[in-house]
């Protein structure tokens, strides 16, 4: 089974971010980068499929050189191959999705796994666009994946508001991973040692024979700002039951309840 996982590096989810003076980008000097949390579930699911059914796992990213770190992490976890496409000049998510599609198409695939959403720009669209361009089924936000290689079919649980949908599709297909799909493993020490020596393949977009006019950005961020500060809150002083009564009274007065 040929399994492809798309992974992306994102700024650590706990740190405070600073906006650059041009106000369209964030300061990226010296901030910690991590693999997009949803991509960890995608990676874990890929490894489990490989363990069950055999085959190989390829991790791909479109990003800067720095993103090699997350690919190394994928190697340490058990990926067989890792590929980075130099994506400095592509800011548009549609362009990135087209590049991923082009590379994936050349490699062949049975299962393509993405995260449900990247937690930096939060587009939640890449996996679906790849499927759309490849004209194959896509199931987004999955929490369970059962594959039957003999019939080339997948049954998944997909999250919906208030519950789950049980759906079936044929392979090849794209799945985007929601939290709850699995519990990602940690890299073993030997995996980490091996990953240090493994070669990460790099692709320059020039080598992909792209018709660049098709990759022009359609959406442009023209300003980043900090969200409005919430007004200073009020700690209700005193002791129970007065505090709780006062809270209910305040909420009632403000017509929240």
């Amino acid at each position, binding site marked *: 089974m040929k399994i492809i996982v798309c992974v992306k590096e994102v700024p650590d989810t706990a740190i405070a971010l600073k906006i650059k003076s041009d106000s369209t980008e964030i300061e990226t000097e010296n901030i910690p980068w991590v693999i997009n949390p949803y991509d960890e579930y995608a990676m874990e699911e890929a490894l489990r499929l490989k363990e069950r059914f055999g085959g190989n796992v390829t991790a791909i990213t479109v990003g800067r050189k720095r993103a090699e770190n997350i690919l190394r992490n994928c190697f340490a976890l058990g990926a067989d191959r890792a590929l980075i496409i130099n994506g400095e000049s592509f800011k548009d998510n549609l362009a990135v999705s087209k590049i991923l599609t082009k590379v994936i198409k050349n490699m062949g695939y049975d299962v393509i796994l993405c995260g449900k959403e990247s937690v930096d720009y939060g587009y939640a669209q890449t996996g679906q666009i790849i499927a759309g361009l490849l004209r194959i089924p896509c199931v987004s936000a999955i929490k369970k994946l059962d594959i039957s290689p003999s019939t080339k079919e997948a049954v998944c649980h*997909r999250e919906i*508001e208030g519950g789950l949908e049980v759906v079936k599709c044929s392979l090849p297909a794209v799945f985007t991973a929601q939290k709850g799909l699995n519990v990602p493993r940690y890299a073993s020490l030997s995996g980490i040692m091996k990953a240090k020596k493994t070669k990460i393949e790099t692709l320059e977009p020039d080598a992909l024979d792209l018709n660049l006019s098709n990759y022009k950005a359609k959406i*442009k*961020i023209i300003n980043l700002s900090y969200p409005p500060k919430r007004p200073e809150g009020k700690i209700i002083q005193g002791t129970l039951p007065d505090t709780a009564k006062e809270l209910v009274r305040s909420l*009632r007065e403000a017509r929240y309840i």
Partner: protein
Amino acid sequence: MSDKEIWVIAEYDEKGIKKNTWESVSAARLLSEHLKLKPAVVILGNGIQRFAEELSKEVELVYSIEHLLLSKYDSNAYVSSIYSLIKDKKPAIIIASATFRGKDYIPMLSAKLDCGLISDCVGFEVKDTILFKRAVYGGRLMAAVMYEGAELLIVTIRPRSFEHRKIETAKGEIIQFKPNLEQNDILVAVREIIKEVGKRPDLSEADIIVSGGRGMKGAENFKLLEELADILGGAVGASRAVVDEGWMPHLFQIGQTGRVVSPMLYIACGISGAPQHLAGMSTSKCIVAINKDPNAPIFKIADYGIVDDLFKVVPVMIQEIKSEGTRNDKGGIFAWKMLL
């Protein structure tokens, strides 16, 4: 007004047209005023006459795409049906809700059309051009984005970002549209739907959310929060710590790797307020924090806080609310919302 149209793609359930669709209709009206577009709604399904009629009470034009193969949702069937209507009518903008369903098929539609897609938009700003606002980096920053393409633009809208302003129009026209679908167009077949929330509202639609963290100490104690949620007509949420402990299913998780919610009232009980949790609820209109640690970061964003043991605070709240009832009991939740 030009004859170019701005479409909203409707969602509905057994109770009728969903709230998020009405919010999108109001958002479409805002845009249509600035861009001189004609609003219309598109609805897909099978046996949807009553939903189309419900829509036509508030929107001038309704495209009803009916087909037996649309009885259940499938992204590919949706995409190809909407695609053929687009080719026929050439709308300028399409709006859909950033629900699980909208997020599923809309990017595939944008891929097929090779058009621009602005997802999970929370507002507009009208300058010389229209700027679309979205939360980025888990709500740590806001981005204003501009559409640079010339063709169709698709926008998905985060539920509860726009207020539904009811407009009773003259009875709108319903135009039937029959798509060309065959069985093998269904790529992802829905077999079954498993409901997990029971009778409470879904997190994205709830006006009030009562949420518990590790301070709840165990699954069994969530009964307390459920009781509070039920008398308020609200939903129950949880922090990731709770989900990871297995006290609540992931469906209830709020935050960066859970649901992003924006209720009128968010009551956080025994939640410390980690940045990843705040990412999912900091746009709530009013935040209440109950935590026994005065230094818990949740207090920095709370409108009201009580520093005490939640197991003592919440029962008093329940008793207090029960003794006088809620606005909910009197005029319904919408009635009081209009007063705000």
